[in-house]
């Protein structure tokens, strides 16, 4: 391990780190938005739409992100749809994440027993009130562990972006290994930055999970 090499590489990795974080969190935001819409479409069984959503969710949950990115980035241009690598990364992560989030949110909603909404109704609550004050808080608590696991999973999946030549952490490491053979230093920085990216999230996740568990069971 050569400190000079690490010093020299640090700016490159920092730049890649920021790009990875940017695309990662943008993708996760997109995934949440898409997941919420899809989950409610499936929960309320909207005709036609829920069939389409179900197909999308199954399709993206059962294929790897790498294959999805290849299809979007290398496949779609041959039928005339050309998008930048950054947008492709965000979109790919968002679509993949959307299907995972949709499943987590939907299973949370469906885990709330029917008697809850019936009781709310008999107490004279409107549909919205029943949802806002009775269903949503319970469903949210059930969904949280799954959603947090998804966030970590999606942040880890950002490592695949190098395949579509995005200058992310993985790409930078691979590039530098190929250029200068400073394998140890490159891998060290790669691991360091992924720890920097994921350890706080993992830690915050455990705290949130504990809070939610307390809300549900009081222990």
């Amino acid at each position, binding site marked *: 391990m050569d400190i000079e090499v690490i010093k020299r590489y640090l700016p490159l990795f920092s730049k890649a780190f920021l790009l990875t974080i940017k695309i990662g969190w943008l993708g996760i935001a997109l995934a949440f938005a898409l997941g919420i819409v899809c989950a409610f479409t499936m929960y309320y069984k909207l005709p036609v739409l829920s069939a389409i959503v179900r197909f999308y969710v199954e399709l993206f949950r059962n*294929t790897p992100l790498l294959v999805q990115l290849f299809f979007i980035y290398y496949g779609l241009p*041959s039928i005339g749809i050309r998008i930048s690598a950054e947008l492709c990364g965000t979109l790919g992560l968002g679509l993949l994440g959307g299907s995972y989030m949709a499943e987590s949110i939907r299973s949370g909603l469906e885990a709330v027993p029917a008697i809850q909404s019936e009781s709310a109704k008999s107490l004279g609550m409107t549909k919205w009130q029943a949802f806002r004050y009775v269903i949503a808080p319970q469903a949210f608590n059930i969904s949280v562990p799954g959603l947090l696991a998804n966030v*970590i999973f999606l942040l880890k*999946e950002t490592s695949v972006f190098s395949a579509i030549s995005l200058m992310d952490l993985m790409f930078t490491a691979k590039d530098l290994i190929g250029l200068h053979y400073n394998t140890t230093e490159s891998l060290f920085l790669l691991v360091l930055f992924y720890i920097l990216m994921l350890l706080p999230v993992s830690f915050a996740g455990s705290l949130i999970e504990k809070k939610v568990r307390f809300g549900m069971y009081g222990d």
Partner: protein
Amino acid sequence: MGIEVIFKGKNLVRLLAGLGAAMKISLISVAISIVLGIALGMLMTLKKPVINAITRVYLEIVRIMPQMVLLFIVFFGFTKLTGLNLSAEVSAVIVFSFWGTAEMADLVRGCMISIPVIQYESSAALGLSRLQTFIYVIVPQIVRRLLPLSINLITRMIKTTSLVMMIGIVEVLKVGQQIIEANRKTAPNAAFGVFAVVFLLYFAVCWPIGRLSKYLEKKWEN
């Protein structure tokens, strides 16, 4: 659109062979992970502080390190450190087993601690020995909870093996690229069709396995 390229010559067979190469790696890793994972999961329920501390660090590493990073560490780093040359396939099996064992161990641990104490007490009250309790009472319940979850792990393993392309193993995506390159002149727009087929191939493999897992989970719910 490039669909016709798939049916030209041996292209479809080649794609399937590529899928087979990825599948072989994932199945070997799954087998290793299940065996090691069950052993480790049982160790984790013993509540020995040293074992717990080590396994916690191990699980946390697997939880936050992308498989791709682990793949690079083993494939490039190991060679650099020891001078031994690991083939890409062996590196992939090592990494996916390392990852799968942690996942499996966590599932096993979760299932084992979810068995209520009353099951053990009732068995003791019925005069069953410890071994009998374990074989006839505990294991059947654990298997019912564990099997759907471990089948799910298999689909995740299959999806993750698509990464091996990045360390130079010729699997289905790589074969797809080769086919596109070879037909660059006659079918310049083959990329769409070829990658769509690869997409659907993965779906065709993972979807039924996922359904099986869901079916078993529903069937054994209570």
